[in-house]
């Protein structure tokens, strides 16, 4: 369960940390309830500013990947699979967009199932 930051990458360091922690949680290498390193220590280990790591942790918390428990630090969220959480979040956004067009859940299901095989995105 290693996080690696490349200082020469075009990807911002906070995004490298955020995406790698998300990947570790998604792969099961970081399990629900496991504690992440304290912000200051991870920043020191990676040679980053404390604010950079803090931003990554904030974004992870906003995405539901981790929870901050005050003095007990930041732990991996116990609220289920990260992929499932992202899917729910994207589904909500899709339904909200349809509602603005005056369409409902049944319309959403109809539109998805009406897509032909060639029109559906591949993995």
């Amino acid at each position, binding site marked *: *369960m290693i996080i690696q930051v490349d*200082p020469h990458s075009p990807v911002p360091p906070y995004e490298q940390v955020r995406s790698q922690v998300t990947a570790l949680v998604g792969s099961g290498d970081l399990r629900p309830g496991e504690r992440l*390193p304290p912000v200051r220590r991870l920043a020191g280990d990676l040679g980053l500013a404390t604010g950079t790591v803090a931003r990554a942790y904030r974004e992870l918390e906003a995405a539901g990947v981790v929870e901050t428990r005050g003095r007990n630090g930041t732990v991996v969220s116990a609220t289920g699979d990260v992929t499932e959480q992202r899917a729910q979040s994207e589904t909500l956004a899709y339904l909200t967009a349809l509602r603005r067009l005056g369409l409902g859940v049944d319309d959403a299901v109809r539109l998805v199932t009406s897509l032909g095989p060639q029109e559906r995105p591949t993995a």
Partner: protein
Amino acid sequence: MDRPTLLLLITTVLATFVVAWTWTAAGRARLLRATARRADLALPADAAPVARRLQGRLTAGVVGAVSGLALAVLVVPADGPDGAVPSPAVPSVIGLAFVGLALATAAHSLVVSRRPVAADGPRVARGRDVGLADYVNGFERRSAVVVSLLPGVVALVAGGAVVTGLLEAPPVRVGLLVLLAVVPPVVLVGSLGLVRAVLTARQPAGSTEELAWDDALRSLALRDVISVPLYAGLVATVLAGAEIAVNLPPALAPAATGVLVLGLLLVGTVVLALSVAGRPARHFRSTLWPYEQAGSRP
């Protein structure tokens, strides 16, 4: 020349030779190979920095142990208070050497953790927090706590014996028993504070191999620290038990002494065997490093 001073002299001479040996390239290489074997780690691609760290750790430990010995020779009475039987002089001197060694290797670990992060190249860190359980096996951790509290149990037993009239105080020195009961837990608390300092220190690394070696050295430092309350508790238990045994009624004293000696030998042998069997130097490998990541020793 009294025993503690003789011990100090012999130790200083040996220590000088050991430290001088590690200042040679052959000595450093041998130290690195021995540590790799103990920790079951592959030799690092860039061996020089790790070899220097090992040399620094050994030097710090030796200097710390000799300093502890020197302090002990100055402050510990040669024959113990009131000609105590057995004399706590030599165990106390050895104990202070342990303290010196643990303080020095922990301090070295903290100093090394301040090294700068490489400006170029990748930076690597662990994605989860670590604790003492990642570096020291459960048997050693629990033993340190249990053995630190044993003298207190012995003191309570002595108190019960005094109340029931089996023992008389004096000649049993209640003050000594209280001291022996209090010192190991205080040492334990101090050790755990030092453990916390080492665990919260940085681990800058540019590769998983470098991080694995840092963990190996950290494991050594933490085990040095945790051995201090173990030793203190063991010695205090022996001294407290002896204090009771020699002051029992003449009919009971020989049997009690025999039980004490045999019991301690048995416990000591079991503890040592279990400790060695647990391969304590490799414990961190099972908790932090799957073998295919850190690379086993060929």
